[in-house]
């Protein structure tokens, strides 16, 4: 391992332990690590966007390929900054209008075509007697869950009688879903901790061993 690699590992370990120290209580090491992370992220992001977006997709094609019309999206981008100047902030609305119209157009199609219709289709087609008793039971659970959950979010009629009963069943399905999400969230957070512990034990520990033993 080279000196630079050792240095990288020690810096990473220092900031990791500084951040973990918050678990005991708030302290200057945690604050230092938090502020350096925020500053570094902003700096890195600015550099990356300048290189990968402004240079590569606007300035270079304009100069090298003669695509002069790219100044239009560039101008729309610059107009966004007018929000910071009192009296001129209305100019940014034209850029925002472009973004909103564009986004609505793209997402209207993708959400409907890519999410809503396929999910409704899959739910409708899920009942298939050929998949055996187990499969059929799962399909019935899915359909019951979808209908009861949708009815829970139907607020044009008071949740009483049959509607109230079905809506209550919908709450049960929602609770089970929250439980599944919570279980997976625990797994995710523990995974991240395991990753950091593996780094500290194997990478940082390896570096300590090489330097001191």
């Amino acid at each position: 391992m080279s000196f630079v690699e050792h240095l990288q590992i020690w810096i990473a370990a220092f900031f990791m332990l500084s951040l973990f120290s918050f678990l005991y209580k708030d302290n200057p090491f945690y604050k230092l690590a938090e502020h350096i992370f925020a500053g570094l992220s902003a700096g890195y992001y600015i550099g990356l966007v300048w290189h990968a977006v402004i240079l590569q997709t606007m300035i270079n094609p304009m100069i090298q390929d003669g695509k002069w019309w790219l100044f239009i999206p560039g101008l729309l981008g610059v107009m966004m900054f007018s929000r910071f100047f009192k009296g001129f902030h209305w100019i940014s609305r034209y850029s925002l209008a472009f973004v909103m119209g564009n986004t609505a157009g793209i997402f209207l199609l993708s959400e409907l075509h890519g999410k809503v219709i396929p999910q409704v289709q899959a739910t409708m087609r899920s009942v298939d007697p050929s998949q055996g008793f187990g499969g059929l039971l799962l399909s019935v659970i899915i359909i019951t869950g979808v209908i009861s959950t949708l009815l829970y979010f139907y607020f044009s009629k008071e949740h009483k009688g049959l509607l109230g009963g079905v809506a209550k069943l919908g709450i049960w399905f929602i609770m089970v879903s929250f439980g599944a999400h919570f279980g997976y969230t625990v797994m995710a957070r523990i995974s991240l901790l395991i990753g950091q512990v593996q780094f500290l034990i194997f990478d940082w520990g390896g570096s300590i061993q090489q330097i001191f033993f």
Partner: protein
Amino acid sequence: MIVLAYILLILAGAFLLYMTFRTNDRRYIYLAVAFYVIFPVVLTMQLPIDISPESQQLYDAIAALPDSSAVMLTFDYYASTLAETEPMSRAVLHHMFKKNCRVVTMTTIPLGGPSISERVTRDLAEEYGKEYGVDYVNLGYKANYVAVLKGMGSSIKAIYPADNSGTPLDEIPLMAEIKNYDDLDFICVIADNGVVEYWMSIVNAQYGIKIGSGVTAVMAPKIYAYVGSGQMTGLLGGMKGAADYEKLVGKPDAAIKGMAAQSLVHLFIIFAVIVGNVIYIVERRRGKGRV
């Protein structure tokens, strides 16, 4: 010796849990979790892993591709979720390189994605003797993922005039054969954020290309619905999904090593939740009102 260590670990966990309820100080829980994570990692303990059907589905989809297929692997994740996502990327890339697939990598995430993809692809390419520009290409990062995903359907070069190192795509032999999604056989999206849904709703729905995914455990319950509807071909959910794939490709690595700690912490949390609820119910019945 190991058995004794685990008995001590269980006793320590029980004691720390007792101290948590006695003092109402959650830091004892943190300490217990730290114990349960550190010990299995240090002792390199391993538990059996059953492959989930969704992981198997992704593996089968890639295994069924003809040799030298053109595939895309995305690194749509931040450095903060590396523990879950990097093992997935590595395991899937192992499989792709073993199959002699021609791999195009990219990312829609600025903080981490470009450097992680560079590191992982170069590491594995060296192991399999793959040549940059011929067997694989790293396109790097481009902002505005919706425009990127839509635009690559017409022309990848229009979105990525150059690769991650700044080499123009015209000078890369592999990219002469891959112009847009029509030239790709499969896309595997490894993500820790909502972009995976856009891959499905924009690229799969509008261009018809098969997409498989690996996502963080937080996201997995939501993505299961897309696997069930057939919009997603296979899913790796969190560290367990990564461990599944490492086992399937025969490359045990960080995820498999981490699963023992994962299981122990889960058991501890289940135990803590049950004990906590029992204490809560008992104290409520006694009318103490203390939780």
